[in-house]
C-alpha cells in the first residue's frame, strides 16, 4: 500500500503512473495579489461552474465567502490595523508650519489572497473516497470523476482545508481540477492565465518551490518580515501541498489551518483500536453467555 504520510517525491509514480510528466502545481504569491478576482471569474467561466447566488457578507470586499462546490478559486480580503508609516524627513527646506506627511496614510492594511485546492501529496479526500471517483492524475494533482462520484460526501469533512463540497442540486462533490483538460494540451490553468500580476504562478512544483524560496528571501531583505511560505514543505502534515502560498500573516488569518494533518496518518491506529474493540465485544458476549446462572 502506498504511503499515507511523510514526504513522497514521486506522487504520480506512487499512484501507478509510468512515464508521467513532472508534478505540476500552483505558487500563489499573495504579496502581489491585488484582489481583482479575475482568477475566480476565469475559473468559473472555463469550468462552467454554476452561479452560487448573490450574497452580501459584510466581509470587506469579499462577497463570495470561501471555496466550495461552486467556487474553486476564492479571493480573501482581510482588513487589519497596521501602524501608520513613520514620517520620513527628506531634509528638504520647507516653508510655513511643519505638516505631518503621513496624516492621510491609512492605519490599516489589506491582505488579499487567492485560495484554491491544495492538491496534497497525501490527500485525505482521495484516501477516504470509497468509489475511486477521486484519483491522482499523471501531473500529481487530485481530480474528481463526476461520472463515478455517488455523492457519499465522505471527502467533505475529510479535507483538512475545507475545500471540497457537495453541490446541493446535483448531489455530487466538486473542486478544483487544476484545469486537467487544459494541462493535457499544454495550457496553463485558467486562473493562472488570467492573473494580471502573476500572483498565481503555475509550473513544475520543484521549480515553483525554488522561485518561492527566492521570493521570500527578497521580501525579508526588503524588511517584510511577516512573509512566510505555507504548504511548501514536503515534511508537513500533508506531505507538502501541490498548491502552496506566500502569506503576509499567519495562515489562520486567511482562513487556512496553521498545521493541517492528513487524517489517514492515524488510520492504522484507528483500525487497530477498532479491531481490539470488536474482539472485546465478542469476548463480552461470550462471557455474558457463559458466565451466569441463566
Amino acid at each position, binding site marked *: 500500500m502506498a504511503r499515507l504520510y511523510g514526504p513522497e517525491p514521486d506522487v504520480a509514480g506512487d499512484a501507478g503512473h509510468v512515464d508521467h510528466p513532472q508534478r505540476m502545481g500552483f505558487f500563489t504569491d499573495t504579496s502581489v495579489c491585488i484582489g481583482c478576482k479575475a482568477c475566480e471569474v476565469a475559473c468559473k467561466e472555463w469550468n462552467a461552474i454554476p452561479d452560487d447566488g448573490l450574497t452580501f457578507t459584510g466581509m470587506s470586499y469579499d462577497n463570495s465567502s470561501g471555496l466550495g462546490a461552486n467556487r474553486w478559486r476564492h479571493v480573501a480580503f482581510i482588513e487589519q490595523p497596521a501602524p501608520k508609516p513613520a514620517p520620513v524627513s527628506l531634509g528638504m527646506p520647507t516653508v510655513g508650519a511643519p505638516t505631518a506627511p503621513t496624516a492621510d496614510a491609512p492605519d490599516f492594511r489589506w491582505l488579499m489572497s487567492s485560495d484554491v485546492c491544495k492538491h496534497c501529496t497525501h490527500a485525505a479526500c482521495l484516501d477516504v473516497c470509497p468509489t475511486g471517483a477521486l484519483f491522482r492524475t499523471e501531473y500529481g494533482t487530485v481530480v474528481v470523476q463526476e461520472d463515478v462520484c455517488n455523492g457519499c460526501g465522505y471527502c467533505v*469533512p475529510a479535507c483538512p482545508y475545507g475545500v471540497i463540497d457537495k453541490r446541493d442540486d446535483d448531489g455530487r462533490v466538486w473542486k478544483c481540477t487544476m484545469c486537467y483538460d487544459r494541462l493535457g494540451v499544454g495550457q496553463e490553468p485558467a486562473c493562472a492565465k488570467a492573473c494580471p500580476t502573476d500572483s498565481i504562478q503555475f509550473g513544475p512544483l520543484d521549480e515553483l518551490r525554488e522561485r518561492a524560496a527566492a521570493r521570500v528571501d527578497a521580501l525579508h531583505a526588503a524588511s517584510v518580515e511577516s512573509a512566510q511560505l505555507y504548504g511548501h514543505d514536503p515534511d508537513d502534515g500533508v506531505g507538502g501541498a501541490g498548491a502552496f502560498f506566500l502569506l503576509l500573516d499567519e495562515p489562520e488569518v486567511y482562513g487556512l489551518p496553521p498545521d493541517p494533518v492528513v487524517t489517514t496518518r492515524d488510520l492504522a491506529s484507528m483500525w487497530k483500536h477498532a479491531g481490539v474493540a470488536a474482539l472485546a465485544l465478542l469476548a463480552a458476549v461470550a462471557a*455474558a453467555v457463559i458466565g451466569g446462572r441463566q
Partner: protein
Amino acid sequence: MSDVGSGDSSVASRDARTASDRRHGRGEQMMVPKAKFESYYGRPIIKRPTWQARDVAAYLFLGGTAGASSVLAAAATLTGRRSLARAGRVAAVAALGGSLYALIHDLGKPSRFPNMLRVFKPTSPMSVGSWLLAAYAPLAGTAAASSLTGLLPGLGNAAGIGAGAMGGAVATYTAPLIADTAVPVWHEAHRELPFLFASSAACSAAGVGLVFAPPSEAGPARRLGLAGAIGDMASTRAMHMRLGRDIGEPLRTGRAGMLLKTAAGLTAGGALLSQALGRRSRIASTAAGLALLAGSVCTRFGLFYAGVASSDDPGYTVRPQRARISAGQRDNHRVS
C-alpha cells in the same frame, strides 16, 4: 462593511468571537480563559459534514445494533437459547434493513450506490464497511429467515454464527468511519470511539434481548447490558480526558451535550433496572431494554452533533494546531 481603523474589535479577522465563546459567556465559568485565536471573519475552516443526522447518526445506531445483535444471537444459538437467538437474528436484519436505507438515502446520487463496490480501498473505512456489509447482509438475512420460517435450521445456524463472527466488525468499523475525517471531536477521539461504539452496540443488543426474549432466557442480555453500560461510561470518560477541556467542549454543550447526558442516564438506568428487576418482571425487563436502546440512540446522535458543532467553529481547528506549533511540535514526520 466594518468601520476600519476605529479599534481592534472592528476588524473581523482579529480575535474572532465565535459561537463557542458566546456560549461561554452565559455558561460555566472557566478557570483559565480560552486561548484567543485568529480566523477569517470567524468562518469555519473545515467544511461541515454533508451527512444528515437522520441518516448517518441513525446508521451509527442501527449498524451497531445489527452487528452486536448478531453476536448475541450466535452466542445464544451455541448455548441453546432459541428465543434469544431469534430475537437477535430478527433485530439484526431489521436494523440492517434500516441501515441500508439510511446509507442509500444519504447519497447525493442514490442510483449510484453500487459504485460503493467498484473498488476496495483499505484507506477508506466507507469502502471497507461497504464490503463488510455486502458479506454480512446475506448471512444475517439467511439466519433470520431460517429462524422465522423454521426451514433449514442447520443452514440458519451456520449463517447466524457467520454473521456473529462478523458482527463485532460491523459494530465497530463505524468508529474509524467518522474518526477518519478532519472533524476535531471525531478525529481526536479515534482511539476511544471504537470502544464507545462497541459498548453502545452491546447496550442496544442487550436492549433487544431484554425486550423480545423472555426473562428466563435473557440472562446473557442482562449481563451484556451491564458490561456495555460500564464500557460506555469508561470509554466516555477516556474520551473526555483525551479531548481535554477545549476540544471536548462540544461534547458537553448544546444539543450534543444534552443528548449525551440523557444517554448516560438512560444507559445506566436501563442496566441497573435490568439487574434489579429484570429476572422477575417481564415489564421491568422490557422497560430496561427500551432504556438501553434509547440510551444508545442518544449516544450516537450526541456524538454526531458534537462532531458537527466542532466543524462549525474554527477555534476547534485552529487552537490545537496553534498550540502544537507554539510547543515546537509542528506536525513533521521527523519529529513525531
